[in-house]
């Protein structure tokens, strides 16, 4: 069953007088449990695609079905709810809240969703152990290394047990060794059944994915699943 089905997606930006087609006539289907790398040069529409998949942005035309539900017609608050329950984000610059501890950052999606404190604490404690952060629970982001920060971010992305994880250059701010660790972590999550979509510039990282999408000028230039 397709987790994601995009048909005829258009996304247009107005930059002054110029009209930029960030996405043009995009058709894409991603099944549950897939591991997809999105590659392509800067400005090819990778990030726009990721924002769209993450329901942070809306297409100007076309339809997006997530888990067989048309999400293009949902209200902002309904979208927020879908993001909260079904989608986890991992960003290049980690996006941790600087004044919160590692444990509080991991708990943030549950806090926002109004999950009771007791359950939050239990799930955060488990996640801290799973991600090797149990010694760092009370550290704030500025007291953590880059690799640890990204592990906190991944723990946060998975804490609501989403169906889909969207990672935007997850290793972009990390050295090769810690980047490797983070990729292994994401791949382990994918192995456990979570659908993983990674946007990357790094060809070696892209090559590790089971399916590669290459974008150019807002179009899908190649798709390894449909050569």
């Amino acid at each position, binding site marked *: 069953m397709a987790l994601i089905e995009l048909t005829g997606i258009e996304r247009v930006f107005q930059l002054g007088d110029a009209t930029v087609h960030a996405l043009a006539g995009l058709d894409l289907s991603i099944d549950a449990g897939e591991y997809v790398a999105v590659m392509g040069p800067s400005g090819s529409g990778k990030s726009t695609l990721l924002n769209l998949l993450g329901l942070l942005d809306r297409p100007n035309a076309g339809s997006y079905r997530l888990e067989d539900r048309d999400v293009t017609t949902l209200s902002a608050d309904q979208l927020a709810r879908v993001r909260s329950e079904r989608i986890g984000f991992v960003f290049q610059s980690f*996006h941790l809240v600087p004044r919160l501890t590692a444990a509080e950052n991991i708990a943030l999606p549950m*806090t926002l969703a109004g999950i009771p404190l007791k359950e939050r604490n239990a799930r955060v404690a488990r996640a801290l152990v799973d991600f090797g952060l149990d010694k760092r629970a009370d550290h704030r982001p500025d007291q953590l290394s880059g690799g640890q920060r990204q592990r906190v971010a991944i723990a946060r992305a998975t804490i609501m047990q989403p169906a889909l994880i969207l990672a935007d250059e997850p290793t972009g701010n990390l050295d090769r060794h810690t980047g490797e660790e983070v990729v292994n972590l994401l791949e382990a999550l994918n192995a456990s059944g979570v659908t993983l979509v990674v946007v990357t510039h790094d060809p070696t990282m892209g090559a590790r994915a089971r399916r590669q999408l290459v974008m150019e000028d807002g179009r899908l230039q190649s798709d390894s699943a449909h050569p």
Partner: protein
Amino acid sequence: MRLTDTLRFARDAATGYPLRTALSVLAMSIGVAAVVILTALGDGARRYVVGQFSSIGTNLVIVLPGRSGTGGFNPANAITSTPRDLTIDDAAALRRASAVSRVAPLAVGTSEISYGGRLREIMVAGSTAEFIPIRNFELAQGRGLPDGDWNRGDSVAIIGATVRDELFGSEPAVGKLIRVGDRRLRVIGVLKSVGQGLGMNTDELVIVPVALAQAMFNSNTLFRILVEAKSRATIPLAREQATEIIRQRHYGEEDVTVITQDAILATFDKLLGTLTLGVAGIAAISLAVAGILVMNVMLVAVTQRTGEIGLLKALGAPARTIRLAFLAEAAMLSSVGALVGYLLGQLGAFALRQAFPVFPAYPPDWAVIAGLSTALGTGLLFGVMPARRAARLDPVQALMKH
């Protein structure tokens, strides 16, 4: 998001930027403290004046010579010319009125007092035995003026505490002969010290029989007649009776003004109450300014934390959650500011009372409540706009500002 989580989130956000938070709390607290201290001053003045006026006697009705066109208290009464004088007999006649319990005529003038080579200027009050109880004075030593014929001026005097200290030092004063003007009087009593009272320092007063005072100042008029009504309820009746008796004695002409202590009190109370309200209004302007400052701080917070807002949206926070988080932060800044300001204001009022013990500088309850609620109100009101702005941010744009 749960309420406790929203509050904790707002608190952490506020404490995350200590300088900015401290400054807006300071502004709000100055506003509230200004309201508290200024109304304490205003209300203190009201209490002081009312208290002073109450202390001159109980259920007093005061007869003064001359007719003022309107009723009630009029400062012009003090300088109008008198068509027909008030006399000791007028005062004596008032004792017949059924609603009147006590009457004291009052003639005043200044003179010199000397004893043992020491000399000073004093105010002489000529009256009768009942003057001291009517005015709520108390004797420290000796006895009051002799009761009896009001037209007989015995050569006796009762002196105030300061006069006693300055003339006699540690010597006993009662029984000594002093010189007042060109007369030799025997001191028969000393007043208890009461301090300043409405510009007339009773500690520097010398009380003599009314007929003696008139003889000394070579006149047969009275300055005032103090009438004490039998009870609070009979004050209007006593006023009517006094007016009627004097009118009859003055051949049907109503040429005196009769005022009641109550009326004067009410006038002062209203006047100074309005003054307090006025200063409270002025102080409230600083509260509005503080509210605008809180808004400014929150707008800066929204700009500074745009990336964070984007993140919260990505993590699934609906607009309402973000709005509430920022509104809670604004409310927190203003309520902490209001609380600190309240404490500062009370501290200031306390310091005022310590510095000026006679001045009852207590902020009135209504001002404290109004000040606190205005602070919270403006804080919330001015917090709405930044909170809405935060909630409306586009998540994609917001996430890029990191």
